[in-house]
């Protein structure tokens, strides 16, 4: 029983420390936020339960990124999954939560099964669960076994990360949890899957074939586009954010996949640079997505609804929430001078430098990946114009939105703290890259001495001559803004208030506002080949002759659920029903089964 002797070793290399920092950056503000969030509507017992579950959940994530033993890793991983399941079903009175929790726990265990299988295969060669033994064993493993382990790890961690088509649980589970937990789940928990990929595929297994990186890149591009297109169609504020997590995991994996390609191509500088870009987007996404989920939670707390079509005008009632949500929205839309812009620019640069260094079809492939990232960026910006515009601007669309009040101090301070972090991560890009080079060097096993992607403390320079200075851009923007403001302030200043132009009608109300559904209609039509939208019209009649009103609803076809998950589920259920025939409930038959089994075993044992 050698394998039961577990060395309880913890790992504190730069890769683990980086992920620890990510966990801390999001968890601490979320915890502060939860003070206000849980204040009303929960009993004392519930509060104690929520707090202890949350702390245990955070601790389990800390364990996931620090253990140095695969067996312990699995234990921590399972602990994290179970604790997050309990948090998803925290509002157990809602049927939706229970359903979301079920989908989540089934999917996450499929993932864990694949990870366990991959570990057992490596264990067969290593004879120990220790990471260092794993790493040694992977050097000796045959190529086809390595390929199988890679696929298993990709499916296993991909399920947790939510890459398409394994993302199915994410838009159900994340919005259903309390908002501070959504923030931790979307901000940090899915990132532990990226940690798993980097740790086990790049660090331990070692990139063996070129197609590994290509596969990751293709999956990443698909995740980006599918995630953001579904997000555009979504009108539930938190569900929209959950779909954006799928998109952003795609962007992170673009960096990771590009790095895998460059490692195999023997280009260490680019491999480190691409992984830096991916990891930079990881920490950025953790912070701004955490911020956005907390903002959405504040809106939910104040109005009791997450449906954007019932919101509007909140910028006047909740100025703090609105301003901080705007910072998050701009960051996720990759607008300068915020952090999302820097990491997307770095990812694009990684692709550009890759295209420059490679020849022929790879030049085109990498350029197309970059183009798809640009398309994703455009779609994300549209989506956040919709999300912010419909939720916070113009007139309130319901009584709930009209009576909203700014949230409590603890929630506000968490929002402000996260916005400040978002801004700092954008301005301090050079310092971050210096740190990330060390982290990437640790993960890829490449010696990074002499690798420098910065010009000075304010300027990034992935290639000599190519510079990006976020503080300078911010300064230029502020300077021109200020100059224009001063110029506009001179002369006569005559501003009068009026009504919005309504073609001569002057009693426009919230019903004439553009809705989220209308905003996304051009996209729904342009992507109709994928979304397959259909409408339902219902006539509400007073009598047979008089139609009082129409009810008109637009739906999109959930492609993955309908064409992948439902058929699979049907096959499983049918097989189970067929199997039921051998279980008739009669004790005689069962005794016969036992007899036949024993007979077969005797024959099997006595065979030699």
């Amino acid at each position, binding site marked *: 029983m050698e394998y039961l002797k577990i060395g309880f070793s913890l790992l504190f290399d730069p890769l683990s420390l980086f992920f620890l920092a990510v966990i801390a950056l999001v968890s601490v503000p979320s915890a502060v936020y939860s003070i206000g969030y849980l204040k009303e509507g929960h009993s004392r017992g519930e509060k104690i339960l929520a707090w202890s579950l949350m702390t245990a959940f955070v601790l389990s994530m800390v364990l996931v990124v620090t253990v140095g033993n695969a067996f312990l890793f699995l234990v921590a991983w399972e602990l994290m999954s179970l604790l997050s399941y309990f948090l998803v079903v925290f509002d157990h009175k809602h049927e939706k939560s229970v359903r979301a929790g079920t989908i989540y726990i089934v999917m996450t265990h499929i993932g864990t099964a694949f990870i366990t299988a991959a570990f057992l295969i490596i264990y067969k060669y290593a004879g120990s669960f220790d990471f260092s033994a794993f790493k040694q064993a992977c050097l000796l493993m045959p190529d086809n076994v390595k390929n199988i382990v890679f696929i298993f790890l990709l499916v296993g961690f991909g399920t947790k990360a939510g890459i398409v088509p394994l993302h199915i649980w994410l838009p159900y589970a994340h919005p259903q949890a309390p908002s501070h937990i959504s923030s931790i789940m979307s901000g940090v928990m899915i990132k532990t899957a990226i940690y798993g990929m980097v740790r086990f595929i790049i660090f331990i297994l070692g990139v063996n074939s070129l197609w590994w990186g290509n596969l990751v890149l293709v999956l990443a591009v698909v995740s980006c586009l599918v995630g953001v297109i579904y997000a555009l169609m979504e009108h539930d504020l938190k569900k929209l954010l959950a779909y954006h997590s799928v998109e952003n995991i795609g962007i992170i994996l673009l960096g990771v996949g590009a790095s895998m390609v460059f490692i195999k191509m023997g280009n260490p500088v680019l491999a480190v640079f691409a992984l830096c870009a991916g990891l930079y987007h990881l920490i950025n996404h953790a912070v701004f997505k955490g911020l956005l989920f907390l903002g959405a939670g504040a809106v939910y707390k104040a109005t009791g609804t997450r449906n954007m079509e019932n919101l509007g005008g909140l910028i006047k009632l909740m100025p703090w929430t609105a301003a901080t949500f705007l910072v998050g929205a701009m960051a996720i*839309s990759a607008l*300068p001078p915020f952090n999302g812009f820097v990491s997307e620019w770095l990812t694009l640069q990684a692709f550009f430098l890759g295209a420059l260094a490679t020849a022929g079809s790879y030049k085109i492939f990498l350029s197309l990946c970059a183009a798809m990232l640009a398309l994703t960026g455009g779609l994300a910006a549209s989506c956040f114009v919709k999300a912010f*515009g419909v939720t916070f601007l113009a007139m309130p669309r319901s009584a709930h939105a009209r009576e909203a009040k700014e949230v409590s101090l603890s929630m506000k301070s968490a929002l402000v703290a996260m916005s400040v972090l978002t801004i700092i991560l954008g301005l301090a890009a050079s310092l971050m890259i210096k740190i990330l080079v060390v982290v990437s060097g640790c993960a890829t096993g490449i010696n990074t001495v002499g690798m420098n992607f910065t010009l000075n403390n304010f300027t990034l320079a992935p290639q000599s001559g190519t510079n990006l200075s976020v503080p300078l851009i911010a300064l230029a923007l502020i300077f021109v803004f200020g100059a224009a403001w001063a110029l*506009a302030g001179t002369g006569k200043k005559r501003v009068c208030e009026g009504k919005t132009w309504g073609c001569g009608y002057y009693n426009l109300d919230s019903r004439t506002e553009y809705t989220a559904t209308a*905003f996304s209609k051009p996209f729904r039509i342009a992507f109709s080949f994928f979304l397959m939208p259909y409408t339902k019209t219902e006539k509400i009649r007073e009598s047979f002759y008089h139609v009082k009103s129409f009810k008109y609803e637009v739906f999109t076809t959930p492609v993955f659920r309908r064409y992948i998950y439902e058929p699979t589920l049907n096959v499983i259920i049918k097989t189970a029903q067929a199997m039921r025939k051998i279980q008739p409930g009669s004790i005689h038959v069962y005794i016969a089964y036992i007899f036949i089994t024993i007979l077969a075993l005797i024959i099997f044992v006595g065979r030699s």
Partner: protein
Amino acid sequence: MKTALILIQILLLIAVSPLVSGIIRKIKNNIRMRKGASVFQPYYNLAKLFGKEEVVSDTTSWIFKAAPFVVLASSVCALSLVPVFASTLSFSNMGDFLAIIFILALGRFFVALAGLDAGSAFGGMGSSREMFISTFVEPVALLSVFAVSLNAGSTNLAAVSAPAGLKLSSIIASLSLFVVTIAETSRIPVDNQETHLELTMIHEAMVLEYSGKSLALIELASHIKQVLFFSLIAAVVIPWGDFALKMAAVIAAVSLLEVSIAKMRLFRAVDLLSFALVISIMAVIVSAAGY
């Protein structure tokens, strides 16, 4: 010294930017056998708007007031990255070719939000359509940038705009960048600057609620953005020959295109942009082949 020269270049370009619009209008009118307004009409318009009283809808928030300044700031900031009169005349330590796309997106984001802020259906419609068009413009712009940067070996604009030998891929990329320019400057066939029929306009619908100084700032920003794109094609993508001549050629091409075809339906515009995407992919392929 260099900084001063760059600042002079920026101010000069800002100063002539309304003139470019004026010239295009004049050419269009002359082709249509009309006399047309003076080429300085855009200046008179700006001066008039600056002196006018401003009407602000009572449903709007600070986003509506800030948006004109943000869009102007983003246009000028992007303009400062473009080397026009000499390949070193730009703030190349501030950002590169890719950064221009991102910085312009900032202004668009705010104007689109401002379109939604007044609560009118026109503004929302304009915002939705503007974001829709610009979403499909983005990959085309990026691939064009990639093609010319791959030729230059860097996304640094000084390197890109330094003449190194005429490449076929740069010319193809300038074609797709021309379509990007048409879409970004709201010109026919994607959008129509002259229309005031609420249902067909895109950019104009979005800024329908603006008046007075705010409208003047937004119009100035549009003029600047137009000059920026024209000089990108004239000075950066095809860095050979006389700048004034190339600028005149771009202006002539835009005016001729505007008078010779009709505005496309919104979803036909997507077809045009898909066509431009194919051209830009061609540019990358030709560049990968070494031409």
